[in-house]
């Protein structure tokens, strides 16, 4: 293929558009009439997914989303990364541009402006995963273990326990030790399920929220970390050495400290983006390193104000029945309760959003690609 032999050809026009985008241009493909004499950066014209994502990134730069004083060479390097990034997963192949002569076989040409947010996210998640792997895991602060610390083993709500475990480790109170108290952290079951899926997204990744929830509903089982009775059994908890905590204000006392930092629940868009990034990180970093990398992302991911995922109306009845059953089992087991087992009942508003849409997730992803401060600034504890 010799794309530059005929200067008037659409192939040359396509390469001109690629160069335009590479230089920071934002003209849509169908409005592009110019040529660019720069030599093509690659022999093949990138797919419509990569090109449209680059155009959206350029638009975001134009709107001032990028950091001030951003240098041209960084933007050019970023553009080259976008143009060569694969679209992760078993979705569509790289799509050719409509208007460029194509053989009768291969994927159908498309107008890049019409490529869905879902497709653009397949490329954006690869860029962010590569950024995360390059950044590496944040160091986890540790301190010498206090001999007089209370021995505990935290189970239950993963958002709370992961954050608490990390905080306590930094203050010389690592989990475990001989004959620990098993502290099971409960919450309204709909929130507990949402927290569990959200935390999975920031560890090894997961299937989409709706599929994941349906899996457990159809099995009529609770996930391992949500089933507090099973969690206590797994750690060999015996009655006097178990505490079921439903009142988070009293959790610090159960692990031997005066207070614990507030836990922020990631929004549905943040969790969904993390889920997609985790899948790519699985191909970029050894499996043992993925949780630390994803935890780093959890601390640093940009805030957008989107609500966390919620249980859809169709599954609320099952959640309520499961919460009642879990409460009965805990009550029969006779474990001491800090709070009230009635607090396990779901409490989300009926009109709670079930999850984020792809456009919200894409907006977040583009924001993080354009503005690298999430990578360059010091971590904050979350």
């Amino acid at each position, binding site marked *: *293929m010799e794309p530059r032999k005929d200067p008037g050809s659409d192939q040359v026009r396509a390469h001109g558009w690629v160069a335009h985008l590479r230089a920071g241009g934002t003209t849509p493909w169908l409005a592009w009439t110019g040529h660019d004499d720069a030599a093509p950066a*690659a*022999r*093949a014209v*990138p*797919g419509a997914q990569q090109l449209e994502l680059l155009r959206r990134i350029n638009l975001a730069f134009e709107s001032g989303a990028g950091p001030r004083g951003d240098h041209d060479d960084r933007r050019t390097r970023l553009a080259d990364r976008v143009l*060569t990034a*694969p*679209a*992760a*997963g*078993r*979705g*569509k*192949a*790289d799509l050719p541009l409509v208007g460029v002569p194509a*053989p*009768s*076989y*291969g*994927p*159908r040409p498309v107008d890049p402006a019409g490529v869905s947010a879902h497709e653009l996210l397949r490329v954006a998640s*690869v860029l962010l995963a590569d950024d995360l792997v390059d950044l590496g895991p944040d160091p986890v602060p540790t301190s010498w*273990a206090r*001999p*007089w*610390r*209370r*021995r505990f083993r935290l189970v239950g709500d993963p958002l709370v326990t992961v954050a608490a475990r990390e905080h306590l480790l930094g203050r010389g109170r690592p989990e475990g030790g*001989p*004959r620990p108290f098993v502290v099971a952290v409960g919450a309204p079951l709909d929130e507990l399920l949402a927290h569990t899926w959200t935390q999975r997204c920031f560890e090894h990744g997961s299937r989409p929220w709706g*599929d994941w929830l*349906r*899996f457990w509903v*159809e*099995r009529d089982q609770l996930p391992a970390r949500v089933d507090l009775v099973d969690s206590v059994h797994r750690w060999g908890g015996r009655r006097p050495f178990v505490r079921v905590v439903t009142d988070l204000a009293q959790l610090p006392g159960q692990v031997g400290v005066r207070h614990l930092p507030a836990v922020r629940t990631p929004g549905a868009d943040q969790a969904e983006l993390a889920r997609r990034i985790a*899948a*790519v990180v*699985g*191909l*970029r*970093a*050894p*499996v043992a390193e*993925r949780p630390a990398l994803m935890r780093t992302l959890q601390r640093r991911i940009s805030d957008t104000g989107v609500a966390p995922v919620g249980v859809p109306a169709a599954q609320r009845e099952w959640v309520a029945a499961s919460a009642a059953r879990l409460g009965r089992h805990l009550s029969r087991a006779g474990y001491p309760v800090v709070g009230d087992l009635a607090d396990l009942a779901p409490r989300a508003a009926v009109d709670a959003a079930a999850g984020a849409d792809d456009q919200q997730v894409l907006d977040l992803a583009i924001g993080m690609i354009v503005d690298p401060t999430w990578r360059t600034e010091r971590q904050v504890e979350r």
Partner: protein
Amino acid sequence: MSRRVLLHVGCPKTGTSYLQDVLFRNQAVLREHDILYPADRFDAHFLAALDLMTLPWGGIETEAVGAWDRLAEQVRDWHGTSIISHEIFARATPTQVERALASLGDAEVHLVLSVRDLVRQIPAEWQENVKHRSHITYGRFLRTIRDPERDSRIGSWFWAVQEIPDILERWGSSLPPEHVHLVTLPPSGSDRGELWRRFSRTFGLDDLPLDLTAERENPSLGVPETALLRTVNERVTSVIAPPDYRPLVRETLAHQTLSRGVASARLGLPPADHAWARELSQGWIEVLADRGYDVVGSLDDLLGPEPGPYADPDAVGADELLPPALDAIGALLVEAARLRAVEERLHEELREAREERDRARLTPAYRARRKVVTTLEGSPAGRGTLDAYRRLRGRTG
């Protein structure tokens, strides 16, 4: 000796599992003849393909980190001929093809594509989908792949790995046509050894003392067996996770049990789809003939068989589903019994370990020490004392 790379990139359902198994098991013999098939496990090239193409694959991809670069490095370092083979390479995008070819260094690259007629490939791909958790009906599958928009996941994947002119355009456009080798699958009913002879000639394996025993194949299913599996998928794919589905459904049910139904009707294409597939294939044959590739076999093999009797898997009755369903229940009970035996053995080992521990704890000295420790653990001061003692003794527990 000149350095050559034989890069076999597809297509799925063209005898690739058998070829890769022979190559994997005969690595030592091949090396003696200066041929490298670099694989430390059977699916090494599959992992390399996942890595090259950034393809998450039900969790297996976590074993693929850096797999393509390692494979390419071994190929670059080899003095003779190297073989790379996996059928999902067929799906690579032009950018990924550029990266793959560049990473093979200055070796002379020969592209190999094994191909089979669409008339047999389409039913085979539907079966493959069903064996990978899909419960799409055959009728909907056919409509999906005939949709020119190819908007669906199934449609885009199917054409990415089965559209021969496009695969060769992506992989072969930078290679001289004589370095592109098209191995056609012989028509149904041909001598069983003919496909191997074509592979052997293409990969330069003639006259090598290879063990050709078939240890690993990807057997096909009959019409009622596939219909049963699809129906089972409707019930279980939402509640059985992929790591459980693979051994229980795909291996135990599909490969080891339902594929034995050799007397069942084989799946073909409905008459209208059959005519469409042959017409499309005729167009491909003309394109491929013009390109001047090295064809091992005959391009006419791509036209496919004449229409025959058609059994519709979407219309299989309960009486036809019953025999394979009973076979499936039997196979799953046997598998459950085997797993129960494993569980029982593990319980026994655990019991023995506990008894041994309890015997060690029966001494009066141990009981006295235990009482002291339990008392101390009840207060912060006691815990501090215990910690200090353990530090002095160099113990942590």
